């Protein structure tokens, strides 16, 4: 056992080097406007290197493994919740962009504004956008408005939707029964320290966190320290 421990240490160190990734330059200034972040989202998004090409998705649907754009999108999303409804004009403008990275990001981000966001442009995107991801996130965002989503004719939207995943999400939007995005979610995103982005590195202390389980139990990673080892699985690596 001793020997296998040393060997595993070497293997894990190599794995650690492979996983020790870039860090986003600290442009996480909370006063930075969403409009500027949207420019960065475009800059850091690439059409190149997408994997899993298929007939249905000729350009591929899997983000390149070395993609760094997600960190920019995360910072931009945080900027959206910090700026709140003041960011709506920038996001609506982005919804009209020919740049798909703008439209997908804006559709995702608008949902976090909950009841404050206007439904018209999202409904338009849910009906008309050529890109599946935009329609899907527009549907999610409409559902996240809570009571405000009441007036939407979900059935007709479902009828005309060609993609099965989007139809499924229309189902979820209906099923959430007017439950809007929880303010706690928005608060968590607002309070998150961007310096902790991508800081899980092998052979270093695992970043601590507290999350609530689906059955309502609050669980803190560090509560297992000295008691148990933990296997932590992110079931949807990318969503």
């Amino acid at each position, binding site marked *: 056992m001793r020997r296998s421990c040393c060997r595993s240490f070497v293997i894990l160190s190599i794995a650690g080097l492979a996983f020790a990734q870039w860090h986003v330059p600290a442009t996480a200034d909370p006063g930075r406007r969403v409009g500027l972040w949207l420019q960065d989202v475009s800059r850091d998004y690439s059409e190149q290197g997408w994997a899993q090409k298929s007939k249905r998705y000729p350009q591929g649907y899997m983000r390149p493994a070395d993609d760094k754009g997600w960190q920019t999108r995360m910072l931009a999303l945080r900027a959206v919740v910090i700026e709140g409804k003041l960011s709506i004009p920038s996001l609506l403008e982005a919804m009209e962009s020919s740049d798909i990275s703008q439209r997908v990001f804006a559709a995702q981000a608008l949902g976090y504004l909950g009841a404050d966001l206007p439904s018209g442009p999202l409904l338009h995107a849910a009906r008309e956008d050529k890109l599946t991801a935009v329609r899907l996130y527009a549907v999610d965002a409409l559902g996240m408005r809570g009571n405000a989503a009441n007036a939407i004719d979900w059935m007709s939207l479902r009828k005309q939707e060609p993609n099965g995943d989007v139809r499924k999400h229309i189902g979820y939007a209906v*099923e959430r029964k007017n439950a809007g995005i929880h303010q706690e979610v928005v608060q968590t995103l607002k309070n998150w320290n961007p310096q902790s982005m991508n800081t899980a590195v092998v052979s270093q202390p695992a970043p601590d966190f507290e999350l609530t389980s689906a059955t309502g139990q609050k669980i803190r990673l560090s509560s297992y320290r000295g008691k148990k080892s933990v*296997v932590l699985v992110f079931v*949807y690596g990318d969503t």
Partner: protein
Amino acid sequence: MREKLETIQGANTELLAVDPHETWAAKSLLKDTGLSTDDLQFPLLMDPAQTVSATYGVAFQMRIHVEASNRPATFIIDKSGVLRYARRAKTFSDRPTPAQVVRELTKLDGK
């Protein structure tokens, strides 16, 4: 699979799953498979703000959302709180088997 789950959980180890959706969505997804959240043998932790996912370098993609575009990630943290194993999948099916996880756990050597 269930047996493996018991091996993982039995070896002085806790299994935690992280899901980036809101709770109601997880419930709805489970319902599709005929389960409720009470049937789960391990805590399903909800991370709808995606802050824990981003901290662990497992963040949201954007392009075409299909089920098979998920890239699950697996981490092993030893008893002293040190991260000992990290695998962020390149594709949906690129993930350690339960047997590999058990092997990694035995490597921890009681730590």
